[in-house]
């Protein structure tokens, strides 16, 4: 066992190590509220240490939890909080990838056989079953100390059994596995819950059976509805859903996201301060549900959803629906957006980003003017031919 503080390591030898501000402290901490002998760390056996307050009323936090007057076992990775300073407990024997910062270069972990673990369902702490028998009980020398009057000094033992571990009841109050009191040693299965006194521990076998394919992703993060517009489902081997080409862009000209170009991906897009909107604009002048942008039969319209500060298009207040032309300026409260539809081939002139003049006529309209030119030319040819014939 070692204590790490300020980049220095303090080995905990058999006997005790004093943490405090006084002369007999091995690990000297100086800050307001730190006593001369503030905390005492005792090594009970190799790899097994407890911490106990050195003076009545000395406050010690272990991983943020305040300690009582009784000895508390320390585990590899525990953080002791003393007078606002942090001391980290490490056990070189157990340190794998989680190495304390500032310590020596990590020794590559030996390809050790994975060990079974017990995880407390109260505080989530993990206890590696690194000895057999592995004793659970109230006694400070137990491998896993459970402090409770309901717990016997040696309450239960985890012992090796063919293909795993069994739990044996040594107590007067009984050991429960998955809610049932055991009367004989029980072979532990992955996920079993062992109850000792009023503390529950989940048993984790070294390896677990494989979950069904895709379960990891499927159960990872349930979401409601699809963010993007629905497209034909991607091929099964595509790892993530593809993002649809935006239907339009909103360039923020005034407001918190100024300069940002926000894509409009769905034909119905809700805009507001609420995060659940398709486009969330964090501005106090915008209502939670402010406006709705819709593509209706090829025409973009903006609807004000009864917002407090109103919506305007090109300076005109929106009552009911208002159609949007390319380059329209949308004002929602104090936020101004420049509307750039993408769905009908409207393009931006490179280099100029603001103002209506930035919008070039759509290719469709270019085609129209070419047709007009051809028509004029045709008429001219006809007139010329007529003139020649009549002559």
């Amino acid at each position: 066992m070692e204590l790490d503080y300020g980049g220095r390591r303090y080995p905990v030898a058999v006997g005790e190590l004093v943490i405090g501000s006084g002369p007999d402290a091995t690990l000297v901490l100086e800050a307001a509220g730190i006593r001369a002998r503030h905390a005492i760390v005792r090594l009970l056996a190799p790899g097994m240490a407890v911490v106990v307050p050195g003076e009545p009323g000395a406050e010690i936090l272990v991983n943020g939890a305040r300690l009582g007057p009784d000895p508390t076992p320390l585990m590899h990775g525990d953080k002791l909080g003393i007078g606002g300073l942090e001391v980290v407990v490490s056990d070189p024997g157990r340190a794998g990838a989680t190495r304390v910062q500032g310590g020596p270069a990590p020794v590559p972990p030996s390809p050790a056989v994975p060990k079974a673990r017990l995880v407390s369902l109260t505080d989530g702490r993990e206890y590696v079953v690194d000895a057999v028998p592995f004793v659970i009980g109230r006694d400070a020398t137990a491998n896993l100390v459970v402090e409770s009057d309901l717990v016997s000094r040696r309450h239960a033992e985890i012992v090796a059994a063919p293909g795993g571990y069994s739990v044996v009841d040594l107590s007067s109050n009984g050991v429960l596995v998955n809610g049932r009191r055991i009367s004989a040693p029980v072979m532990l299965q992955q996920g079993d819950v062992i109850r000792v006194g009023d503390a529950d521990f989940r048993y984790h076998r070294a390896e677990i059976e494989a979950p069904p394919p895709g379960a990891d992703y499927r159960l990872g993060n349930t979401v409601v509805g699809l963010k993007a517009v629905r497209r034909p489902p991607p091929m099964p081997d595509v790892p993530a859903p593809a993002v649809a080409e935006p239907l339009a862009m909103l360039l923020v000209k005034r407001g918190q996201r100024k300069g940002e170009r926000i894509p409009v991906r769905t034909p119905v897009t809700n805009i507001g301060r609420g995060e659940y909107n398709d486009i969330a604009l964090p501005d106090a002048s915008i209502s939670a549900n402010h406006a709705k942008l819709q593509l209706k039969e090829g025409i973009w319209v903006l609807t004000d959803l009864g917002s407090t500060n109103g919506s305007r298009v090109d300076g005109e207040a929106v009552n009911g629906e208002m159609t949007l032309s390319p380059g329209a300026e949308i004002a929602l409260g104090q936020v101004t957006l420049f509307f750039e539809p993408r769905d009908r081939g409207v393009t931006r002139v490179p280099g100029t980003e603001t103002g209506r003049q930035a919008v070039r006529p759509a290719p469709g309209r270019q085609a129209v003017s070419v047709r007009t030119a051809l028509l004029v030319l045709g008429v001219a040819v006809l007139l010329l031919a007529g003139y020649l014939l009549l002559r």
Partner: protein
Amino acid sequence: MKISCAGNTDVGVVRSGNEDSFLLNCAGGLFIVADGMGGHAAGEVASEMAVQIVAKELGSLRGLSDAESASRMRSAIRKANAAIFERTLAEHDKRGMGTTTTVMVLFSRRYLIGQVGDSRAYLLREGDLLQLTKDHSYVQEQVDAGLLTPEQARTHPYSNVITRCVGANEDVAPDIYFGNLERGDVVLLASDGLTGMLEDQQLATIMGAEENPETCVNKMIADANRRGGLDNITAIVVRVDDVEAQNTGEMPTAKSA
């Protein structure tokens, strides 16, 4: 109807908190499983609200016709939806919270189920397992439309997307299912932490083998954890011991599990 029932929930192996809630009212014949979502402790708020509000709003269905019961079920779930949605608007840290809700009421040899989301109800009858509810999920809709096979659905990139949820929108449309029960039937209500970890065949085996509902529930939860326990696991098992004798009335006041 004489039934025996048990239910339990478990945080699973991976998650740090349990966002599932359930209600087990054996005497009243009312069972609810709700699987909440939304970070920062909002998920369990949503699922707990759904359970409490639905139980309260359902009240007694005694003497109601099927149509009236269905309408009561719909309105109970919609009220829960409105209350949760209201909170998502009012409380900053509750944004985006919501929950699945699967409610089963038993009355005079029949079951009535109200369903939103992807928690499920199953019926085991004479060894055959029947899924009573249909998931409100993107992949389920694609399977129904014939665009995906159930196998593809399991590993599809959108397999985590549900299409209906209590509390996500202003209103919600629950699905309603009715059916008759027979002696020896076993009904399972479960969150996806169970149904996503165990195949239907495995559920059927456990439901068929374990006579005692409590053993059955604990065995299923332990098996889901054994395979990785990737999500919170909730299971309610109801065994129909007799359809003539009675220990199940119709909807006394519900108490939360």
